[in-house]
């Protein structure tokens, strides 16, 4: 896992105590696009399953994730796709 990816994972774990967290670096899918850098680590997808999301609106969940990663978003990360779920929604 790259440096940026591991920092994202550490920050999410520390701030949201998620039951499950997944960070995927999808930069290779965007090679050559605006915002892509040759060294990669620009486009990420995160899945965060946290009990604290229970009963919280979609907007508020996304805001919480983006707040945790605000340094990354204003720095190396060009795009971040977020799936923020409560544990009860994942038991399908």
């Amino acid at each position, binding site marked *: 896992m790259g440096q940026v990816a591991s920092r994202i994972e550490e920050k999410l774990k520390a701030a949201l105590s998620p039951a499950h967290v997944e960070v995927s670096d999808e930069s290779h899918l*965007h090679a050559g696009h*605006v915002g892509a850098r040759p060294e990669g680590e620009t486009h990420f997808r995160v899945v965060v399953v946290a009990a604290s999301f229970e009963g919280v609106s979609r907007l508020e969940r996304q805001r919480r994730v983006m707040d945790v990663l605000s340094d990354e978003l204003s720095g190396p990360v060009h795009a971040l796709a977020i799936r923020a779920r409560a544990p009860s929604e994942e038991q399908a």
Partner: protein
Amino acid sequence: MSDIDNIIKAEIDSAEIVLFMKGTPVFPQCGFSGQVVQILSHIGAPFKGVNVLEDDGLRDGIKTFSNWPTIPQLYVKGAFVGGCDIIREMFEEGELRPFLAEQGIELD
């Protein structure tokens, strides 16, 4: 409010559904903007696209206005609904049509 805030407010009020996006509905210049265009078109929701790439003031201003760091951003009847992830989730879970219908928007 600053000038750019006034311009943004006027854009948001200029149509029932307004999408701030990179590129135009016909030629989206970003995959995330393109996904929202596809979803809105698929459910037959009429919307106005505002290309933030045409104006740096707008591109930065919309992020401050909504306190949301990314584009696209979808507004319905003047209220911020979300970005690409939220619109896609609402669509996939069958909530987008009912939501728009509740807002009094007619779908084609």
